[in-house]
């Protein structure tokens, strides 16, 4: 992400601006009243604005929505892999694993690894937020959330005894 510069404007509000990858400086001025101004800076006189678009609260939401959607879906893909030190992973339960045949409570995966099992995928069926009584079967896929180390440890447990 580009580096965003913040400038306090006493009595008015706050301005954020940055240089786009195309080399244009654009910004948003947030008034204390909630109004916004979209700023496009001039290229020949970089201290002034070539274009100023005044937006009320409603316009701001509309514009944010329009700009936001594609951004959000792009980010979702990344999120599945990484949320600030958290990892989500899909781990199969191997036949050789000591966990196979025991309930989630007995396997005590969370207390051993710190990883939460958020769902179990069994064939066509998905058990969301499985309770402690659910018995793990060979061939299940566990959807696990935890630290990268915890996930590694869980992977080991699900592979062997």
């Amino acid at each position, binding site marked *: 992400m580009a580096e965003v510069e913040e*400038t*306090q*404007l*006493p*009595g*008015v509000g706050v*301005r954020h*601006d940055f240089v786009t990858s195309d080399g244009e400086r654009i*910004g948003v*001025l947030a008034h*204390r*009243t909630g109004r916004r*101004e979209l*700023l496009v*800076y001039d290229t020949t*006189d*970089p*201290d*002034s*604005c070539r274009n*100023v678009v005044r937006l009320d609260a409603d316009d701001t939401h509309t514009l944010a929505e329009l700009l936001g959607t594609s951004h959000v879906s792009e980010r979702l893909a990344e999120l599945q892999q990484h949320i600030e030190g958290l990892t989500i992973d899909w781990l199969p339960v191997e036949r050789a694993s000591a966990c196979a045949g025991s309930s989630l409570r007995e396997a005590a995966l969370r207390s051993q690894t710190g990883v939460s099992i958020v769902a179990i995928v069994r064939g066509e069926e998905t058990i969301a937020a499985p309770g402690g009584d659910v018995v793990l079967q060979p061939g299940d896929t566990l959807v696990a959330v935890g630290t990268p180390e915890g996930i590694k440890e869980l992977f080991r447990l699900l592979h062997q005894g």
Partner: protein
Amino acid sequence: MPVAVAAAEVAPVLVELGLVVLALAVLARVADRLGLSPIPFYLVAGLATGPGGLVALDLSPELVDIGSEIGVVLLLLALGLEYSSEELGANLRVGLPAGAFDALANALPGVAFGLVLGWDPRAAILLGGVTYISSSGVISKVLRDLDRLGNRETPSVLSILVMEDLAMAVYLPVVAVLLAGGSVAAGLVSVTAALAAVAAVLFVALRHGTTVSRVVLSRSDEALLLGVLGITLVVAGVAAQLQVSAAVGAFLVGIALGGAAQERASLLVSPLRDLFAATFFLFFGLRIDPGDLVPVAALAGALAVVTAGTKVATGWWAAKRAGIARPGRIRAGTALIARGEFSIVIAGLGVGAGIEAQLGPLAAAYVLLLAVAGPIVTRFADRLAALPPMAGARRPT
């Protein structure tokens, strides 16, 4: 019947006041249509309807007195509320050099003019205040209208306005005490007392602004507004008792409020501010005979030209320090030319104390000139910047 008598007395006052407010409404509309600040229009309206004006309105003297007193108290509360104590504190650290340049370059010409004219030194100090302070009201309107709030030179302009606001917190009480008169020794004591009081207010505002805010803060807008107005009137009254002007007390209340209370109160008060300002300018104009403007017109013109130049130099220098290029420096400098509400308030202190007969008319003529000329000149700032650099002769070295 007492009730009927009271009603009979009140009725003409209400009609008078209503007609005056309607006239202001028409003027505000005209000013808006022309894209100008309404301040000069209100002043002219006051001049035209006062003694010696085109139509001498027969307003009761009590109405004029009370009207201008309440107008100035509420106007100064609104001016004090304009910036939060956090903004004042943050700006104090970075804006000091530009603020000092501004004060010296613009107050000294005014003081010098007063002294050359052979005025009482206190009147000269007041004239210095009149020429020093830019009009944050006119300037923020101009910046908004010209879509310059997002410009990169604008923080330099706003920073100067904030420093002027802070400077007023010191200047106004000291001047008010000086005007109260007395011997030199008594004057020194009261100036020291005033400075101590201001230091205490500023300390509370800058360090404990959020605590003060919490005391008056309420979820209900009415409760907040009434609380702030109540405190303001009480402090203003106490200040008036202590011979410091009521307006100064109100200004310090506005300055001392910080945090969420300031933020919400300033939004609540801002539409009222224009109303207070309108009444204040009108009543200030009412007290001045337009005939008195003629002899001081040339003087006001000269003072306006000199101090417009010094303001341009101030803005140029401040913007240059912020790394702004030539066109932006000219925009910043010309934006600062406009004088307005504070200049009139300062002159009003002198008029109230009756120290120099020429001060009121001179300040009125001066503000009329610069409140109109400032916004017009800055509109053409970019064309000035397009001229060859030779034309920037006012540039300080």
